[in-house]
């Protein structure tokens, strides 16, 4: 399956890129497993996760064509 990954703010700085498209074996996987595959690290604490622009957590299941974003707590307004 193919998944689009996006990073914002300090997470973009940490990863050294704004986005990435990754191709993975299988038809689905949890966000937590996806993160391990792409980074080999544990997810920094306080990281927020959105799948297809809706907030979720590491247990969410990602499927082919999904957009997954990782970013720090929001500070707008």
């Amino acid at each position: 399956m193919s998944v689009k990954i996006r990073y914002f703010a300090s997470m973009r700085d940490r990863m050294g890129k704004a986005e990435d498209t990754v191709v993975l074996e299988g038809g689905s996987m949890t966000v937590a497993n996806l993160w391990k595959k792409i980074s080999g690290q544990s997810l920094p604490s306080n990281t927020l996760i959105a799948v297809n622009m809706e907030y979720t957590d590491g247990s969410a299941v990602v499927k082919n064509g999904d957009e997954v974003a990782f970013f720090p707590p929001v500070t707008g307004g």
Partner: protein
Amino acid sequence: MKVDIQDVPFDPCAATRDYESALPKGKHGGIVTFVGTMRDFNDGHDVSSMFLDHYPGMTERHILGVMEEAARLSNIMDAYVVHRVGDIKPSEPIVLVAVWAAHRADAFDACRYIINYLKERAPFWKRETTPQGKRWVEHNTADPAVEAIGRPTRFA
């Protein structure tokens, strides 16, 4: 209801007036607006400029979601939000929340709800430029009223 995300400065007065010009005349009794402006200090640091990152698409979706919640919780006629992104200088407006209602209590409640939950959910991130360099802001100042539904206002 409408949300505008823009990377150029805006005039909150003109924006409010332009949006209002399309609303029915003589029907609303009260308008409450909140304008958040960039301060030249934060957490004890001087701040000379700010960059505001966002997640296009998700931003608009979550702000509209908050506005729709406010409209369900109160009796408002319309609401309009403008939010800057990109490079911002001190004293420039960052956000406008304008709410029109027949009665002022609804307009106050809804305006405060929208700005509080916009700050909590809308995917924006501030990076400040200070004499010590650039740094991502790590938390927003919370409105005490957002901590729990039904918490008393500090005074009536």
